[in-house]
């Protein structure tokens, strides 16, 4: 892992993207790391494209502005790829993680990713439906990000998801989400 990892999330309002960034930040706290998670602030409207950001670092994070040169770009909704340039500012060795049932190679072409950049996909929506019956891809995406970034182990991320769901949700929903994180972690693949 680079000294400071900067992540940019692309999603739509109502998909839980901001929550995903928060859960990920929480999980990264272990090992004395510094973390940040914040959305691009604006009126949050269901369905509207939005961005959220993470920074994870072994040293104090002082930067308080959006991530402009992400190491990792997470695309929670592949339909965004048609309207938004998710590669903007991405570093030459950036990693893209996209929620899609398609072959990563196909998306690599669509993104016009540089040879030095890596493209991963995970069918997060399908996993979510399988696991808890709702098309909320954030849990599997957190799992996939944990795996690809190498920042957190599966155990830690599962523990954290469990904690963040707290008492607000039924055991069934929590178990479903844990399964979804696990499958996201296991099923993300590179192309």
């Amino acid at each position, binding site marked *: 892992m680079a000294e400071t990892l900067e992540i940019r999330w692309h999603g739509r309002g109502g998909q839980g993207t901001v929550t995903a*960034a*928060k859960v990920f*930040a*929480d999980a*990264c*706290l272990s090992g*004395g*790391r*510094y*973390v*940040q*998670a*914040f*959305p691009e*602030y604006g009126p949050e409207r269901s369905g509207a494209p939005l961005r959220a950001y993470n920074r994870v670092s072994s040293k104090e*994070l*002082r*930067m*308080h*502005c*959006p991530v*402009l040169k992400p190491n990792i770009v997470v695309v929670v909704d592949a339909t965004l790829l048609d309207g938004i340039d998710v590669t903007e500012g991405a570093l030459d060795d950036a990693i893209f993680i996209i929620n899609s049932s398609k072959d990563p190679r196909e998306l690599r072409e669509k993104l016009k990713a540089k040879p030095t950049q890596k493209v991963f996909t995970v069918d997060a929506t399908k996993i979510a439906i399988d696991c808890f019956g709702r098309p909320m891809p954030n849990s599997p995406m957190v799992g996939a990000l944990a795996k690809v970034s190498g920042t957190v182990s599966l155990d830690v991320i599962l523990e954290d998801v469990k904690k963040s769901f707290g008492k607000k949700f039924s055991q069934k929903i929590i178990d479903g989400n844990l399964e979804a994180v696990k499958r996201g972690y296991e099923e993300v693949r590179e192309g």
Partner: protein
Amino acid sequence: MGKVVAVTGNEAVAEALRQVNPDVCAAYPITPQTDMMQRFAVFANNGKVKTEMILVESEHSAMSACVGASAAGGRVVTATSSQGLALMWEILFIASGSRLPIVMPVVNRALSAPLNIHGDHSDAMGARDCGWIQLWSENAQEAYDNAIQAFRIAEHMDIRLPVMVCLDGFIISHSIERIEYLDDELVKNFVGEYKQLNPLLDVEHPVSYGPLILPDYYMEFRRAQAEVMTKVADVVLDVAKDFEKISGRKYGLFETYRLDDAEIGLVILNSAAGTSKDVIDEFRSKGIKAGILKPRLYRPFPYKEIGEVLKHLKAVCVLDRADAFGASYGPLFMDIASSIYPYKDKPILINKIYGLGGRDYLPEHAELVLNELVEIAKTGKVKTFKEYIGVRE
């Protein structure tokens, strides 16, 4: 070491307020403060604090109720932002003039019109001379730490003045950051028991608050209040010393970053100071002697102390996240200019207005300003003393 968590600035300050456990809290919603008081209300309604909530019908009544509750004889908090602070304006002066130690987090936000809910410093800057102490915070950790220290400062028997704890709207209030919480017991002991002074509820010793003071005495009361302000800095430093003992975190009247041997410097408040520090490191690695001064105690402003640390620089840019319409310069600039005014040899000062209404302050902005300062330091020539940055032409 206390508990390490990843939380928003609002959450962190709400946690500080829970640990302080005030007697009364007045709350009224306004973005981006709302979820701080919301979180506190959850503590109150779940019996996690002894605090009685007053869910007022406006910020004006929030501050009015705080004045009543504080005069009654107990520890009082409220929080606000922007228009809410503006609506309180009248009563802010009454709180300080009556010497009531109310603590109020202010989640900084722009003022209307046009309507904007995002972070800038126009609200607190507008209230800077209302007799309140102001502590400013770069990040969630500082906001949490300042909130706890604020009670000790406000309630100090030599001071008895209200304190605002400023943090940037959204950038800090709504962003999740790693912070370290202190243990409940430590905070409780640190702030200590509330000490009453002329409590209204002491019916055996009736007092009258809020007399009409005619010209024969008004100036004497104002002069006395001005005198209290001169004692604040020492108390802030004493409280910081005690706070360091329980937290390991050091606070002063302001923070200097690589400023000692610097030739050029930035003066900047709150969250943008952090972003600037990373850029300063880049310039230092290129051999450019740059540093930062970040005020913490903004009111009363430590003119002398700040003048001392800035006087040796060649060129300084003061970055203001608020404009002072019709004045030549932004509010922070005017204070910095006053600080270095007494010195014969002093840096050239320029002023940039940035980040209004939530406009991002990016590293490139700091770079731009630092490059300009390098040039000014070299040539002694200034093109523009004040200008907006990050604005479209």
